[in-house]
């Protein structure tokens, strides 16, 4: 039942925020904050009390499970379950949700109640995605997080240069994700009907569908349907077009959620659904996926270097970082998959940090254009130091979580696909270039405008310090996370070892 509450709390909190606006502007903020903290506390308590040393069998690895029939005629259930991976991601959602509320404290001034309704509905949808095991329910939540995100960008976003309006960015975001969601729906339905024609049983249940014997070449197309749906969200080049616009135009809270959690739903979907449902097809597809990952790493990094808008720069770095995750998921190595999970968490921290920082800069100098920054080091206290820390995390400096994630990915992938790792390592140099370019354009050089600016207040300082401490803590002692997800990562890696000659195929493509 606690799983239901994890999903319901943000939704109820959101409704309450909406209504609370009549009590004053501050009320929705406090309610939203309390709601997300509540989610965070529940997941941390579950984590502390959970036993994750479960055997790696895929059948009964759930820490908590809850299922009731919903539409029995079609075999649709409300089936929620939690294992180490979903627990960590739910906790991450609670944490970043808290930050998202905090960083909009002064930024959002109009329709505060409705803003928090949307924000909390996104987060509720995300928690649902992480917990749903029934494919229909999963799809429902998958679509449910899009609509409030659309409003978040369209109503509270910034309009950049002419032609780059927030409405346009929101529409683009919506079309990309809708279209890909449609592919997934088709794939889900096809899978269900194949299973129906095989067994005469209509079911959307994950456990039931996992063993479905889908004939070739249909299986390949279904796998591709899932892959593309997740690839758009991750995002994988060439499906990344919505991301820079959405980030640049979204309010800070939207960017934090988008980069921190929404992108992770895609990686989660691959680990949970795309790979286990179609192991052989995924193994055969691995060389292509890895190549796409490489393209993402390099392409994202090169584009990041050419951006003038600070949030677009950070958005492109996300594409680059997610390339590492994609490579890891298709590497068939437990070490790499564990690394990908760490990298997901690490990227959530570092990109959230950078987005919050650029939001704070925007509140002070009212621009995101790096050509009109420069020399901020002498104008703002403390913020440049934090920027440097998160920039260092983003370029994979050891002792940060990003380093642990990236290097585990690379160490794990190297034996099966050395060439991929060599090319991906070029991304490490490029990461240094774009990260330091950001630093240099914003904080170094002569002052673009004179005059000191306000330093961070306790709220801003606290957010950044918490993120930084967590980044370094995970960087120096990631073991608690690794232990939690070990039971999830190992079976996923085994999927590929069964699908035999992966290494040979990966070699051929490269």
């Amino acid at each position, binding site marked *: 039942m606690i799983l239901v509450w994890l999903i319901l709390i943000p939704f109820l909190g959101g409704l309450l925020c909406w209504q609370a606006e009549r009590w004053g502007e501050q009320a929705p903020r406090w309610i939203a904050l309390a709601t997300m903290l509540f989610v965070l506390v529940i997941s941390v308590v579950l984590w502390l009390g959970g036993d994750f040393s479960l055997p790696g069998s895929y059948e009964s690895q759930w820490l908590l499970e809850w299922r009731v029939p919903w539409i029995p005629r079609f075999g649709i259930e409300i089936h929620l379950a939690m294992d180490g991976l979903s627990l960590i991601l739910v906790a991450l959602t609670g944490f970043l949700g808290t930050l998202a509320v905090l960083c909009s404290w002064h930024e959002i001034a109009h329709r505060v109640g409705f803003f928090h309704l949307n924000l909390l509905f996104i987060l509720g949808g995300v928690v649902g995605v992480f917990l749903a095991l029934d494919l229909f329910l999963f799809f429902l939540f998958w679509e449910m997080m899009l609509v409030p995100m659309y409003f978040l960008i369209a109503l509270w976003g910034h309009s950049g240069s002419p032609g780059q309006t927030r409405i346009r960015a929101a529409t683009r975001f919506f079309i990309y994700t809708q279209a890909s969601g449609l592919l997934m729906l088709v794939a889900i339905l096809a899978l269900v009907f194949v299973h129906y024609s095989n067994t005469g049983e209509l079911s959307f249940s994950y456990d039931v569908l996992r063993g479905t014997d889908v004939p070739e070449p249909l299986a390949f197309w279904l796998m591709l349907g899932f892959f593309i749906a997740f690839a758009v969200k991750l995002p994988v080049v060439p499906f990344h077009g919505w991301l820079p616009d959405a980030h640049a135009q979204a309010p800070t809270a939207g960017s934090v959620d988008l980069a921190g959690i929404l992108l992770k739903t895609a990686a989660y979907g691959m680990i949970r659904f795309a790979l286990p449902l179609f192991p052989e097809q995924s193994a055969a597809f691995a060389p292509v996926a890895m190549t796409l990952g490489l393209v993402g790493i390099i392409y994202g990094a090169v584009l990041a270097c050419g951006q003038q808008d600070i949030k677009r720069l950070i958005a492109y770095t996300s594409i680059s970082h997610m390339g590492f995750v994609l490579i890891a998921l298709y590497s068939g190595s437990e070490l790499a998959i564990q690394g990908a999970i760490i990298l997901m968490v690490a990227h959530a921290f570092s990109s959230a940090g950078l987005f919050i920082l650029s939001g704070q800069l925007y509140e002070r100098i009212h621009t995101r254009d790096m050509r009109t920054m420069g020399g901020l080091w002498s104008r703002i206290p403390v913020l440049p130091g934090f920027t440097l820390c998160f920039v260092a995390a983003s370029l994979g400096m050891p002792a940060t979580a990003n380093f642990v994630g990236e290097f585990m990915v690379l160490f794990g992938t190297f034996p099966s696909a050395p060439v991929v790792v060599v090319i991906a390592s070029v991304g490490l140099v490029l990461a240094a270039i774009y990260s330091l370019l950001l630093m*240099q354009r914003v904080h170094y050089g002569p002052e673009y405008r004179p005059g000191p600016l306000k330093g961070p207040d306790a709220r801003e300082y606290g957010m950044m310090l918490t993120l930084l401490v967590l980044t370094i803590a995970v960087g120096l*002692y*990631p073991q608690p996370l690794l232990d939690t997800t070990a039971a999830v990562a190992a079976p996923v890696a085994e999927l590929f070892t069964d699908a035999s000659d992966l290494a040979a195929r990966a070699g051929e493509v490269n």
Partner: protein
Amino acid sequence: MMVTPVVLSFLFPLMGTLVLAFSSGRLGARGSSVIGVGSVGLAALATLWAVLSHTGDREIITLWTWISVGDFQPTIGLGVDGLALVMMAVITGVGFLIHLFAAWYMTGEAGITRFYAWMNLFVFSMMLLVLGDNLLLLFLGWEGVGLCSYGLIGYYYQGLDNARAAFKAFVVTRIGDVFLALGLFLVFMELGTLDIATVLTRAPEFWAEGSATANLAALLVLGGALGKSAQVPLHTWLPDAMAGPTPVSALIHAATMVTAGIYLIARLNGLFLLAPDVMLLVGVIGAISLLLAAFAALAQTDIKRVLAYSTMSQIGYMFLALGVGAFDAAIFHLVTHAFFKALLFLSAGAVIISCHHEQDMRKLGGLWRKLPVAYGGFIVGGAALVALPLVSAGFFSKDEILWQAMAADRNGLLIAGLLGAVLTGIYTVRLVLGTFHGEPGSDHARHPEPGTNLITHHLPLVVLAVLSTFIGAWLYPGLGGLFPDAPGEAVEGGHTLLQVLAIGAVVAGLALAGWLFLMRRPWLDDVASKGAGASLWKLWHHAWGFDALFDRVLVRPWQWSVRMLRFDFINLIMNLPALIARGFNAGLVRSQNGRTRSYAVVMVFGATVILLALALVPGGVA
């Protein structure tokens, strides 16, 4: 018990960094200096304690397991042996003197807290680098050093050139780091461990000598070493790194950073011995670097740039030693070099501050009476740099390197080393004469303000001066037992001949320099200002044009591709469906024109088509 002093030795600088970073300016300049200098001083004392309680065996202190997934088990673990202790002593000892001097040098500068926070973090990273008992922890320190160098080189953040120099230093060394990282991946895949001791025992069991894998692994590690130690072709960041305050240059060039590559190769000696070809390459790169840099040093006008190229040249000697398998000689030279290069840089710093930030030799001169302490520092440090026989520390270590090269029968390397010794004599004499003798070139040099502070100015210079004499060489304990036998062990006789040659080279260099700069100065200036002489001067002044080459081959194509891709052409392709849809939209909108006549035409046309279709399709109308 080694645990306490060893842990304290790197914890003090870390705590210094944290206190300074979170002080938010509450400490003031004096408080920041006290904490910044004090933390490294305490680290030096802790190191002394560790040295005194060292038993001679390698001790492993495992603090915790960093990551544990399957076989992948790197720890946060420290390995303490003679090599680590020597490095620690140099880092904290010389580092402390540099920090102390910085308190004088940085007086009145803005951001002193930030300065000391970075400096302390630098020392901390370097300590982890030499203490890490597995390659991943070593890599942590390795990258940390790079980040700190970025922060310190770009310390004067308002100059964009400084930011670029910092950027360049980080990116160029990062390229080397990626090679090292690939080396780690390879080592882990092949040997299943990253623990240094286990790597060294397993490598000969798994790999045959000269096998492709062993060569590749050594080559990749070498790539990392080249970046950090500024050897050809990854050396271009080093001269630009002079953009930072002079104590930073001293720290980077003497006690930390550039020595990291030497340490790495010495530490992984067993790996390199399995790859004789790569060993030869190490020696050759060292020889090339030492000569290129020595020529470049001849044609610099900035005193810090002369010293920068001399560092690269001296590191070249260490690579040469590593290349012939004389690991102990390389570390020996590393230690003496740390003493005399720190002395030279700090003395240069004393000159620069006394002359109001003037560091162009053409605008200095005639300072020897007015700045006696700095002059003394230059004389003693310069003597060690040219390896003045018997009295200087540099003589003993450089002699050892040349002797090992001779014993290993690498005559090419030996000749390069001897030629380098001649050149070193020339550029050192030029440096000292240009800075301290002759006529002052500017008002700043005519009226210098000598440093007077006994503790923060005189003391570090004097201590380093003493260490740069034969006393410094005596202090080196000798680490022969830790390394495989150097080639010199197996050779009888010949050492005397070598010493005659080496001393001959030094004397020749000094004499040539004296003759050129004292007797034939006008002729020299004349040659250097026109025709081939001027071209040669220009070539050397720009250090053989590596920067221009990399600019053409790498930087510009990169910038071009960034510009080309900036508008995200893949995304534009994905916009095609939207464009097509919009095209249809435009077409259909046009049809909706509100004219009854055209509607009627279309309707009739449509009806005809449908009727025709019904008539022609067999069995169409049931």
